[in-house]
């Protein structure tokens, strides 16, 4: 059964304090081995704590992906800004960058040695697979969000094929399909309003 649409959920809870924001983001940032953080953030911010709703999250995710920069950092800035303004944005960025940066400098080589151990290596590979699964769930939600009209469906399929089969880079795909998608959505919304 798909989960209920955002409108049928109870109203969002109060916004997190700066401290909560930092601890939540830092904890998730330190749990991610090899990607999948947007999935972690979705599970925590939208589904578990309900600090922001799904539409807002997907808007932030889409903008974060299309702008330059590390996706996780962009999304943390976006979520932090949404929850606590400028201070939230700074705390958000700091939370996903500073703790892992300290860790990688201090015990990066140790982690590399540990991961050569078969048992640890298997567990880390399992964490990575699970994190990829969380990414997949966010990708599917964004796809569902886009599947309301024909053109977005076509753009979704072309992006997928362009990336997987033609090995086109993200900037090329964003530069090609971004303007088309935005222009068509704009025309549709202006017509609905006018």
């Amino acid at each position, binding site marked *: 059964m798909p989960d209920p649409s955002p409108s049928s959920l109870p109203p969002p809870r109060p916004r997190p304090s700066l401290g909560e924001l930092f601890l939540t983001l830092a904890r998730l940032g330190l749990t991610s081995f090899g990607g999948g953080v947007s999935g972690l953030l979705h599970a925590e911010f939208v589904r578990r704590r309900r600090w922001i709703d799904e539409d807002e999250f997907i808007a932030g995710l889409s903008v974060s*992906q299309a702008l330059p920069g590390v996706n996780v950092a962009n999304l943390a800035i976006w979520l932090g800004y949404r929850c606590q303004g400028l201070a939230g944005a700074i705390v958000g960025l700091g939370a996903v960058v500073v703790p892992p940066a300290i860790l990688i400098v201090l015990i990066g080589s140790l982690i590399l040695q540990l991961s050569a151990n078969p048992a640890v290596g298997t567990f880390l590979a399992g964490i990575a697979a699970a994190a990829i699964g969380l990414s997949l769930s966010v990708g599917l939600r964004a796809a569902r969000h886009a599947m309301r009209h024909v053109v977005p469906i076509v753009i*979704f399929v072309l992006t997928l094929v362009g990336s*997987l089969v033609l090995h086109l880079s993200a900037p090329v795909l964003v530069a090609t399909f971004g303007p088309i998608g935005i*222009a068509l959505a704009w025309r549709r919304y202006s017509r609905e309003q006018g």
Partner: protein
Amino acid sequence: MNKDSLLLALIATFAPLSLMTIGGGVTVLADIQRAVVGHYHWFTDAGFLQIFAVSRVAPGPGTLLVTLIGWHIAGLAGALVATLAIFIPSSLLVLAVAYVWHRYPGLVWQKAVATGLAPIAAGLIIASVVSLLASARGGWIAWLAAGGVAAATFQARIGPIALLVLGASAYCLLSVATIWLG
């Protein structure tokens, strides 16, 4: 090079790359390697591969590779300067967009941008999922664990860390089981 010119070289290398990383840090990896191995000779090929491997297995964004580069060539100041150089330019841009976005809520252009970019974001994410799983350790077990975790998020309100641990445990059990069953 003295310390100050090392720090300036770090800024000159990483700050421009900050604005070229659309779709994740992987896109500028080749540029980083060219600069720090080929141009400045700060690392040998083997040395670069070593810190690259560390950045892959350590928690946090893979882009923290630049933190390690800064640390190795100029200590604490180098780590700070390199990290700030790669994150600040792109972060200011995101912040500017977030500001404008929330300053004028509910406008047609916002809905248009969000809806127009969503299918591209979805395509990029799912494409990266497929290519990560195709090269993941464990083959079908990785696909199964990832699929199971994704399905679980549509069923129950489980926290992300619990999901990671459950998925990783299932992965480990299946890996051990396939070894035993030969």
